[in-house]
C-alpha cells in the first residue's frame, strides 16, 4: 500500500464496511481500533448479544492486524516463531497460537491460517511487523502486513451456518472447526474459516475490500429471515469472556510493549501450556520455558465463578487469609452461563482447583457505592461452550 503524504488529514479510517456499518449504527457509537473506527454497538448491546447467542450476528473485524508469510522456509520460520508445532497444521486449517520473546514471555496471541503450501496468514492483536522481521534472518520468507488489503466479518451464532447456506456456499455445513474453504463470490474469492472469538458456532469471512459492501448486502439479504443482526464490540467482549478467551492488553501485557519487568506472562501463566510443544524442536523462548517448567511459574490465569451477581470488574483477589494474591482482568455477569464469571491473574501457588479465593467487588446502585467480598470458585475450561460450536455437520439453528 502506498501511503499519500496527506494521510494525516484523515487520522482514522473507515473500514471497508463503513458505508453499511454507519447506516446500521443507530446509536452512532464508535471507538477506535488502531487505524479504523468500529462500532461499540449498533442498536442495543444486550439485544446484539442475544442475537449472537440466539440467532446470528456479523461483527466487522477488518482492523485486525494480518500478515501474509510466504516462501520456501515459511513453515520452518513459523515453527521458530510460535510455540505450537505448525507442521501439524495442514493446508486449509487454522490454529490458535502464541509467540514468545527469548525470556519465554508472551509477545502476542493470534491465529495462523495455513492458506496453501508455503502460505500462511498470521492474525494478531498487536502490530507485529518489527518482531516478525526480527525473527526472519536466516529464513527464506517474505513477510507482508495485509491488514488493509483484506476485509473481514465474523458471522457467529447458531444460525450462522444457515446464512452461509442461503448464500449458496455449497457444503459449508461440513466444514470442521478450524477449517478453511474458498468460494467464488461476485468475481472474487470469499475465504471462509470456521473460527471466531465468541465460543459459539461461527465463521469468519475474508474478502477483498472492494467486495466488502456487496458481501454485507448479500448476507443481510439472505440472513434477515434467520435473525441476522450487526453486533458491536461491547457484545463481542461479553461473548469472548464467556468463551474464556484472553485478550492482549487486557488479560496480559504483550511482552514487547512492557516497560516494567515482571508485568509480562508466559504461556504457562496464561493457562496455555497446551500450546507449547517442546518436542517440535527449537523456537524462540523454548529454553526459558523449559526452565520455567522445571522451576515453576510465578503466576496463573484462572477462570472464576464468583458468588452472587455483582460483576467482579477490576477486583483484587485475596486468599483465605485476606492476603492480596491477584487481580481480575475481565469479568461480567454471563447471560449464557447464568453465572458471575471472571478471568483473573493470581500468584502461584494460588488458584489451584478447589482453592479458596475472594474477590473484593465495588459496585454502585443509584450512586451509592458498596463493597463486597465474594467467594470465588476456580473452574476449568470455558464458562460457556455449546455443543453446536463443534458439531459437524453444523446445524441450521
Amino acid at each position: 500500500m502506498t501511503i499519500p503524504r496527506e494521510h494525516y488529514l484523515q487520522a482514522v479510517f473507515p473500514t471497508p464496511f463503513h458505508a453499511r456499518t454507519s447506516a446500521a449504527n443507530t446509536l452512532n457509537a464508535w471507538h477506535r481500533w488502531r487505524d479504523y473506527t468500529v462500532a461499540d454497538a449498533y442498536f442495543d448491546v444486550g439485544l446484539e448479544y442475544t442475537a449472537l447467542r440466539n440467532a446470528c450476528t456479523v461483527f466487522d473485524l477488518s482492523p485486525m492486524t494480518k500478515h501474509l508469510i510466504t516462501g520456501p522456509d515459511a513453515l520452518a520460520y513459523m515453527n521458530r516463531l510460535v510455540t505450537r508445532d505448525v507442521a501439524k497444521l495442514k493446508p486449509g486449517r487454522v490454529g490458535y497460537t502464541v509467540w514468545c520473546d527469548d525470556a519465554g514471555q508472551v509477545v502476542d496471541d493470534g491465529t495462523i491460517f495455513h492458506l496453501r503450501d508455503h502460505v500462511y496468514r498470521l492474525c494478531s492483536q498487536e502490530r507485529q511487523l518489527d518482531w516478525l522481521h526480527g525473527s526472519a534472518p536466516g529464513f527464506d520468507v517474505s513477510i507482508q502486513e495485509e491488514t488493509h488489503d483484506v476485509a473481514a466479518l465474523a458471522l457467529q451464532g447458531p444460525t450462522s451456518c444457515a446464512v452461509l447456506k442461503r448464500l449458496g456456499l455449497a457444503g459449508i455445513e461440513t466444514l470442521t472447526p478450524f477449517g478453511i474453504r474458498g468460494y467464488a463470490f461476485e468475481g472474487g474469492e470469499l475465504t471462509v474459516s470456521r473460527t471466531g472469538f465468541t465460543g459459539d458456532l461461527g465463521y469468519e469471512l475474508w474478502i477483498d475490500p472492494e467486495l466488502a459492501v456487496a458481501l454485507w448486502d448479500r448476507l443481510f439479504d439472505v440472513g434477515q429471515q434467520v435473525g441476522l443482526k450487526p453486533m458491536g464490540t461491547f457484545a463481542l467482549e461479553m461473548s469472548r469472556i464467556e468463551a474464556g478467551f484472553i485478550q492482549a492488553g487486557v488479560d496480559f501485557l504483550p511482552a514487547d510493549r512492557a516497560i516494567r519487568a515482571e508485568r509480562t506472562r508466559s504461556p504457562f501463566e496464561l493457562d496455555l501450556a497446551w500450546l507449547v510443544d517442546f518436542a517440535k524442536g527449537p523456537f524462540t523462548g523454548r529454553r526459558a520455558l523449559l526452565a520455567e517448567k522445571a522451576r515453576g511459574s510465578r503466576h496463573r490465569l484462572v477462570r472464576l465463578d464468583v458468588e452472587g451477581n455483582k460483576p467482579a470488574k477490576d477486583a483484587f483477589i485475596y486468599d483465605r487469609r485476606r492476603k492480596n494474591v491477584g487481580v481480575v482482568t475481565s469479568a461480567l455477569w454471563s447471560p449464557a452461563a447464568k453465572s458471575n464469571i471472571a478471568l483473573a491473574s493470581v500468584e502461584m501457588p494460588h488458584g489451584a482447583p478447589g482453592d479458596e479465593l475472594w474477590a473484593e467487588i465495588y459496585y454502585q446502585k443509584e450512586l451509592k457505592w458498596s463493597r463486597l467480598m465474594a467467594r470465588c470458585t476456580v473452574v476449568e475450561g470455558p464458562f460457556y461452550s455449546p455443543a453446536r460450536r463443534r458439531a459437524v455437520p453444523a446445524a441450521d439453528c
Partner: protein
Amino acid sequence: MTRYDVIVIGAGHNGLTTAAFLAKSGLKALVLERKPWIGGAAVSRELHPGWIYSNCSYVCSLLRPEIYRGLDLARHGLQVAPYGGGVTFTRDGDYIGGYPDKDVRRREYARHNERDADAYLRYSRDTMRQCRFIRSLLMRTPPDPASLRLRDLRELAHLGREFVKLGPTTMGDTIRFYSMSIADYLNEYFESDLVKAHHAGSGIIGTALGVHSPGTAYVLLHHYMGDVDGQVGSWGFARGGMGAVSNALAGALRAAGGEIRADAPVARILARDGRVNGVVLQNGDELYSDIVISSLDPKRTFLKLLDAGDLDADVVRKAREFRIRGSSGKLNIALDGLPSFPALGAGHPLVAGDMHFLDTLERFERAYDDWKAGTWSKDPYLDLLIPSLTDPTMTPPGKHYMSVFVQYVPRELAGRDWTDADRTAFRETVFDQIARYSPDFRSLVLHAEVRTPQELENEVGLTEGNIFQGELTFDQLFFNRPFPGYAQYRGPLRGMYLCGSATHPGGGVMAAPGANAAREVLRDLRRPAIVPQGWSDD
C-alpha cells in the same frame, strides 16, 4: 550590615528554586543576580518592540511536577501549553512527521519504511524503560558510593533496587545505553536513515559530541524523561516564554518572604577557617550569611568566586578539568507573518511542532566535523519552533516569533573570539538553511537576535556557553556530577552548597538540582523536610 540565613548566587531557575524552598521553610533568603533581569537561561525578554523572546531555553517538559505543585507555580502564573509533534525535512522536498497521534505517526513512518513504523514501538518502549529508571532518581540526592554512612548505604540500596527492578534484559541494556552513541542506539531499531536522523538530534543537543560519539545515547533522556501532566516525553511552551518559569519561581520566593537583588554581581565568596561567611559584590558591598549557595557552574564557583588558597588542591584541579564545552547557538527572530514551508503545505499541523533539516546521520557528523575544526556547522542542525502559533502572548496578532536552536557552534573560532562579522556570517548560514525549506522566510524577518556561545558565556554566565552547565556524559553524571565527592550539593567549605545544572540531575529547565540542594541544606540545619520527594511512576 545585613545578615541573611542563606545567600543564593544567581537567579537562574535553579537558584530561585533553592531559595524559594528555603524561604518557605522560614529562612531569610537572598538571591543575588548579576544581570538587571532574572532567569538565567530561563528568561523572556522583549528585544524587538511587541515581540517576546525565550532568549535561551524555549521549550518546557523537564520541570519537575513535584516542584510545580510544591511551590504553587500555577498560582504564581505558570502555565505550560503542550505542543504536538515535530518534522524533519528532506532535501528532495519531502519530510517525515512525528505526529502526536500514534497511529498517524506509525503510518507516516511506514510511508518511509514499513518496518521502522513498528520498530518505533520497540524504540519507544526501550527509551521509556530508561526514562523510568532515571525518573526514579531525579528528585533524590545521589549516594556517595565511597561512603559508609547509613544514609549513603540506604541510597545505594535504593539505586540497587531500582536497577534490579529493571529486570535482567534491561539491566544489561542500561549499562550499554549509558555508554553508547546515539547513532548506534538508533541503528538497533531503524533501517531508514531519515528515521534515524529524525531522532538523532535529541542525542546531541547542547553536547559537544557527534552522533557517533559514545555517551550521546544518554543525552536523549534529557529530551524524553520530562512530562507535561503525566505525558512522559511530551513538550510544551511556558505561556509568556520560558521567563514565565523563573517569574513564577520568583513569585513563590517573594510570597515566602525571600528577596531578590538584581544587578548585583557577586565578586567573591567570603570564607574563613574552612567555612563561608558571606559574599562580596562587585561594587564592594559585603553581605553576610553562614550559608552560601552557588547556582553557577563549578568553574565559575571554584575558580572565580573562591580563592584557590581557601580550597584544597585537588578540588581546584577537578574544577579545572570539568568538561563544559560550548556547542550551541541560538537565533531569536521576529517575523512579519507566518513563513510557508512548501513541503508541508498550508495549514499543516506540524508547523506548530519542532522542525529539523538534517535528513541523514552523515550530515550530523559533518556538522560536528566543522565544530572540531573550530567553526560553526555550515550545514547546521536546527531545532526550529514558532511558539507564537501556540502562545498568543509572544507577538502582536498575525505576527510571529521563531526560536532557532543551532548546533554546532564553537566558543572560539579557531582559537579567537567571535567578531560582529562572524556573527553576521553565522546568522546567514542559519538563514540559508531555513530559506532552503521556506523560500519566503527571509522577506518576513524584522529582527534577529544572534547568540553564539560567546554571548551565552558573557551574557548568561554559562562557562564556554555550555547550555547544560557541563556536559551530560556518564563521567559527569549522578554521583560524579559535577565531580566525585561533591555530588551531594555540598561544597568543600562548611556552609557552602551548589544548586545549579552542574549538579545532579543536570541541565535543562528541570528545577530538580535546585530542589535537591534545598533539601540538603534543610537537612544540615535540621529543619523539617519540606522539599517534596519524587512521585513514583509505579
